[in-house]
């Protein structure tokens, strides 16, 4: 009666949903802002990559927990 693998799978899927939603929203507003003002596209791209890495960091916390669950 080992639910750890099931929990790991569900956890990873939910994390991916949250992370993808956040980064998608971020990318869409970055595209819109670059479209409005093309000369600031470089700054926007840098900030976008920083924010995307931070959001990805959060989703990777949950991934680490899921891996720990699956390996137990």
């Amino acid at each position, binding site marked *: 009666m080992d639910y750890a693998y099931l929990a790991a799978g569900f956890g990873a899927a939910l994390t991916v949903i949250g992370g993808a939603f956040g980064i998608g929203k971020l990318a869409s507003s970055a595209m819109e802002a670059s479209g409005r003002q093309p000369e600031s596209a470089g700054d926007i791209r840098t900030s976008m*990559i*920083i924010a995307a890495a931070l959001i990805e*960091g959060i989703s990777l916390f949950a*991934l680490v927990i899921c891996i720990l669950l699956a390996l137990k």
Partner: protein
Amino acid sequence: MTPLDTLHTAADSLKTVVASKTQDTGWIMHHILDSRELDFPPFGVIHLPEIHLFGMDLSITKHLVFIWLAVIVLSFFLIRAAKAYKKSRVPKGFNNVLEVLIVFVRDEIARPTIGKGFERFLPYLLTVFFFILTANFMGLLPYSSTSTSNISVTVALALISFVVTQVGGMMKNGAFGYFRGLIPHGIPAWLLPIMIVVELLGLFTKPFALAVRLFANMTAGHIVIMALLGLIFILRTYFVVPVSISFALFIYLLEILVALIQAYIFTMLSSLFIGMAVHQEH
């Protein structure tokens, strides 16, 4: 059957699937985790010495060997670039590439985030940036392993960042003034206990996040590549080979980008924390 029974049988079948697959997928963990021997599959195995000192296990492991390799490669190239800088300020060849990266760290990372007095922290930021970059890239070569995919290595890097942040902040603002400056001005007195707890916790979660972010990014990339390539061995058919290899190649190219981005993010966040500690204007 009750829903719980279906869940039980689902969990049981999952367990048998995973159990039978651990013979197929144990090698994924073997490539990711640290080990006491350097493994060159068709050729042979080099066993690394075990050293036990003062009751601690200080044996040399694969990740440690690759840390040393990264340090040797880095020292060679950077000292060579520094020596060439003494002769003429215009670098040539590979020194030019290093100069682009160094100027990038100075102008895009250190100066905007730390502001005045950033020169004192620049050696540390450059060291950390180049070390993480080199260690991440070395993990992409055949027969090697990523030393930053070991949680101990990333925790050590984050710990050093933490120490640099606190010491830098305390030297600028005084030991007690630094802690007083953590709490923003103009908050009502009843909020003070909560703010103290929150700020102190925030002091420790930031390096923790640095460590886990780097570790998880490096490990996850390698696990995905291994899992995609392992599909060939699990499914045991030739038709999955082009699909598997093209996906793995795409993830591999993404890994290169992630290696660069993670080095940049670690350095950028370290310098952001140093800037917040040194210039505490809330």
